[in-house]
């Protein structure tokens, strides 16, 4: 008997892995495009790909992995079409297909994610499942905004897609220590403000300031309400997840402040967006991969203290990058961006090493 037999989930594990690999290709191309933008001479199949860094990371990579996670949770085969569409959209971008072909496919991936989330929301009608469905709908709209050259709206849309997905999941976990009715009302108000600000970004550059303000409010809410404040006092994996979350909330706060206040700085947007997408979103990914990967591809990833290493590199390199952006030091930005890429490599290497250790452990437990 294998330690982790496949027992459903709508699609055999053997088919989930290729989807994950397709998503990783978007990540690879997206990171390469990002390094090129930061001034590194990274070879790319097409230098024009540098302009597609955002769609590759937010829509193709995150669209694929979040779609996969949701499809596994739902356990319906059609739901896997969402990560397939997002992954295929990413591959088309990498292959140099025109944006009017690739971006609608990314939007379709978001649409299918919305459908899958709505089915889950019907199983359990609750605020958190509705927030997740709302976030998914933004994943469907943002690629279309990008196609229509509404760049601010697209970028804010992707940020809101990821931020609300995480916030919805944290709200779900907050039921272990339920927020007061007033705190819930504040949460709904913040989400409403975030959506209004998002709509404003399509019309006026000042929309980004409002959007930043809403992110600040959300970060403060999460810092106050999240059970991570409690679970950080535990040990092992539970503490590691909490440290990832709490450190991520500080970056969300920083990114929101930068967008809201718009201090003078030659590369303000680079600083603000990477505070949100790298500091907040990636820290969240680092924390949750050790529990989400085992659910998706059925490998066990036993916790090791070395999980903290990629997280430390993430925060240190991002600090360097943001400082370089704001002070006008291109070298700092370039090295910070390289450190951001390095933390991803370290993270993947750490997870692979943990998977191998987990397999060896499982074999010891169940001698054939």
């Amino acid at each position, binding site marked *: 008997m294998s*330690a*982790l*037999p*496949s*027992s*459903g*989930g709508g699609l055999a594990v053997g088919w989930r892995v290729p989807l994950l690999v397709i998503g990783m290709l978007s990540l690879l191309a997206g990171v390469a495009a990002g390094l090129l933008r930061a001034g590194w001479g990274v070879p790319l199949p097409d230098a024009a790909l540098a302009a597609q860094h955002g769609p590759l990371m937010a829509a193709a990579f995150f669209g694929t992995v979040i779609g996969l*996670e*949701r499809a*596994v*949770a*739902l*356990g319906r085969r059609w739901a896997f079409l969402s990560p397939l569409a997002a992954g295929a959209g990413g591959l088309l971008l990498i292959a140099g297909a025109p944006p009017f072909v690739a971006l609608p496919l990314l939007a379709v991936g978001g649409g299918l994610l919305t459908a899958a*989330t709505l089915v*889950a929301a019907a*199983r*359990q009608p*609750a605020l*958190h*499942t509705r927030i*997740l469905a709302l976030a998914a709908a933004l994943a469907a709209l943002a690629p279309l905004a990008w196609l229509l050259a509404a760049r601010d709206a697209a970028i804010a849309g992707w940020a809101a897609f990821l931020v609300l997905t995480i916030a919805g*999941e944290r709200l*779900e*976990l907050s*039921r*272990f*220590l*339920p927020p007061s009715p007033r705190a819930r009302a504040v949460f709904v108000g913040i989400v409403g403000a975030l959506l209004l600000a998002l709509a404003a970004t399509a019309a006026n550059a000042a929309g980004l300031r409002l959007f930043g303000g809403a992110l600040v409010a959300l970060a403060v809410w999460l810092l106050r309400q999240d*059970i991570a404040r*409690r*679970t950080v006092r*535990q040990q092992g*994996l*539970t503490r590691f*997840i909490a440290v990832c979350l709490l450190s991520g909330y500080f970056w969300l706060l920083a990114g929101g402040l930068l967008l809201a206040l718009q201090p003078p700085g030659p590369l303000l947007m680079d600083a603000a967006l990477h505070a949100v997408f790298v500091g907040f979103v990636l820290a969240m990914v680092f924390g*949750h991969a*050790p*529990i*989400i990967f*085992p*659910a*998706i591809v*059925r490998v066990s990833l036993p*916790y090791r203290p070395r999980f903290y290493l990629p997280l430390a590199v993430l925060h240190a390199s991002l600090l360097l990058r943001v400082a370089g952006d704001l002070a006008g030091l291109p070298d700092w930005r370039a090295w910070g961006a390289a450190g951001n890429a390095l933390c991803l490599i370290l993270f993947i290497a750490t997870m692979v090493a943990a998977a191998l250790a987990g397999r060896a452990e499982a074999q010891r437990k169940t001698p054939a």
Partner: protein
Amino acid sequence: MTAPPFSAEQVHAALRAVVDPEAGMNIVDLGLVYGVDVDPPAVRVSLTLTSPTCPMGDLILDEARQALAACLPEGWTQDIRLVWEPPWGPQRMSAKARAHFGWDGQ
């Protein structure tokens, strides 16, 4: 029937080894174990998750199966199922879990 006595308490004790890593608390105290039915030589368990958007269902089921398999008497069978009705709510948590998460006055 010569099967040794085996109680629902023993099933609960075994399932306490299954921990939600995010919450740092076991599934019994979280109130995720809805039903334990001991009918020698078979054990039936129904479990739920806090949310249908949680992808960890299969994993938690597998861990519960392994935990139970390790303590079931020889020749017994187990049937563990995931159920969604009624939806989980925080009132299902034990006093220990509530204290763990910092509920006041519990």
